[in-house]
């Protein structure tokens, strides 16, 4: 269906279209600002994530080495039995947080098990390190969820901006130009008619 169907080439309609396009263009500018902020937020998040993930991987490697040693010395069934002596693990709660209108889950640790002194010494060090890393892993998971949702929102905002810039605003401009052209045409016709009639009246008077 043509954007020009249903268009009334009147001055009132032209003024309304101009008001609308001005509003839409302002809205598009705000969305571009939001897009730029989200893009900056995402690129900073990705840098941080890369760094944190690398650090956590290093520490997990250290923990894994200690656990491998424990398995070599104690045997798999003893290690599993030792792990059984820990009464409970982590209890967490998730709460919503928001950045630039984007909601993401924030994790709060409610309780953690006390493991110091409860495991065989060969496992104790690995277990303590692991408990420290858990906090970092939770923060990383929170950050990843945030980055994912920011990226999602960035995509949506970008699509909106593109739709506005490439489809909506041009179609409004097209309508406005059509009305302006029509009004100009009518104005010119009116002018020519007036001149013709004026000329005819002047000739009759002579």
């Amino acid at each position: 269906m043509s954007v020009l169907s249903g268009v009334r080439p009147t001055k009132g309609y032209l003024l309304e279209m101009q008001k609308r396009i001005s509003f839409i263009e302002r809205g598009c500018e705000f969305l571009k600002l939001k897009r730029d902020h989200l893009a900056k937020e995402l690129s900073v998040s990705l840098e941080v994530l890369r760094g944190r993930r690398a650090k956590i991987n290093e520490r997990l490697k250290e923990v894994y080495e200690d656990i491998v040693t424990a398995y070599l010395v104690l045997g798999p069934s003893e290690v599993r039995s030792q792990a059984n002596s820990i009464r409970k693990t982590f209890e967490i709660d998730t709460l919503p947080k928001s950045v630039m209108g984007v909601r993401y889950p924030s994790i709060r640790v409610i309780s953690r098990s006390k493991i110091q002194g409860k495991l065989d010494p060969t496992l104790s060090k690995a277990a303590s390190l692991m408990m420290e890393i858990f906090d970092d892993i939770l923060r990383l998971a929170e950050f990843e969820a945030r980055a994912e949702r920011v990226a999602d929102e960035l995509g949506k905002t970008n699509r909106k901006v593109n739709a506005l810039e490439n489809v909506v605003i041009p179609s409004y401009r097209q309508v406005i130009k059509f009305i302006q052209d029509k009004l100009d045409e009518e104005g010119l016709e009116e002018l020519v008619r007036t001149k013709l009639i004026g000329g005819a009246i002047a000739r009759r008077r002579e």
Partner: protein
Amino acid sequence: MRARLLAPGAMKALALTKDLEEFLEHLSKTPYREEMGGERGFVSAARLEAIFNQTFLRRLERIIRVCPEGLSEFLQTYYCMRLEINNLKRFLRGRFSKLPLERIRESLTPLEPYKSVSFEELLMAEALEDLIGSLRDTPYAPLKESLVLSDRHDTLWPVEARLNYLYVEAVQGVLSKIPPIDRGRVRRMVEVEADVENLLLAINWRGVKEALPPPENVFPHAYGFSPEVIGEIIEGRRLDEATASLGPPYTEILRPVLEDDFALVRTNLRRHIYEMSGAGRVRDDFSFPCIVSYLTSCDVERGDLVAIAWGKERGVEPGRIFTYSVLPAYAP
């Protein structure tokens, strides 16, 4: 029977295999071929652990069956009670963390009851009082105070320490069954082991902020050094000073503690026990020393094979396996 044990060179060769498949291939060329008779194709490290444990138990039962009564009683206390205590520790860990009964049962080594009631009966005990009641007429009855301490402080280590002492006392009680010339060496073997285990428990509790039971309640005595050292270690005395003050063989066994390598302490302990058990054969390679050396070698072989199998399944490099196993170090 000694001929069926793997020589240190064979153990080293197993540790040098590329992966679990090659390990199984090498193992099939040893006497373990018969032990694994029913297994075909790929066998997991967990299944291999069970096979190695069963092999050790069969060898132990065979020796106990053919020994004279007194010696048999000693061997049952020395080995069967040690295995039973291990099972008891695993059982208590499972009960402590309220694991499902099936998972507790799976973690136990399949053993006939030796000194305690059967673990099936223990599994049925619902409350701590029922558990204490089930152990009442067994040598583990003194665990009652430790179980109460453990419950109060939310940790099992008072029970584990008490079990270590009960084991030493039980072995000391049957030393009269073995030749007098061997009693001193065997006594030192169990005492060194109990002392090192208790020292590791004490080191583990250094710097713990929560209220602990008084050390003298949990570690009433030490066999090779002054028991005050254990309390000093818990309270934060410098480890290098504390371990140096213990004297041989503790100082050498515990040296890796200064680098936080507790696993190597255990390996050092196993090597020490292995060497002590072998030392008796210099004097007498036929009777009691030979039996103890053989059974200790079986136990060490079992531990090393479990470690190697697991290491191969996980791609652990041979150097690491050598560090934490016993027999490969004695290979030429």
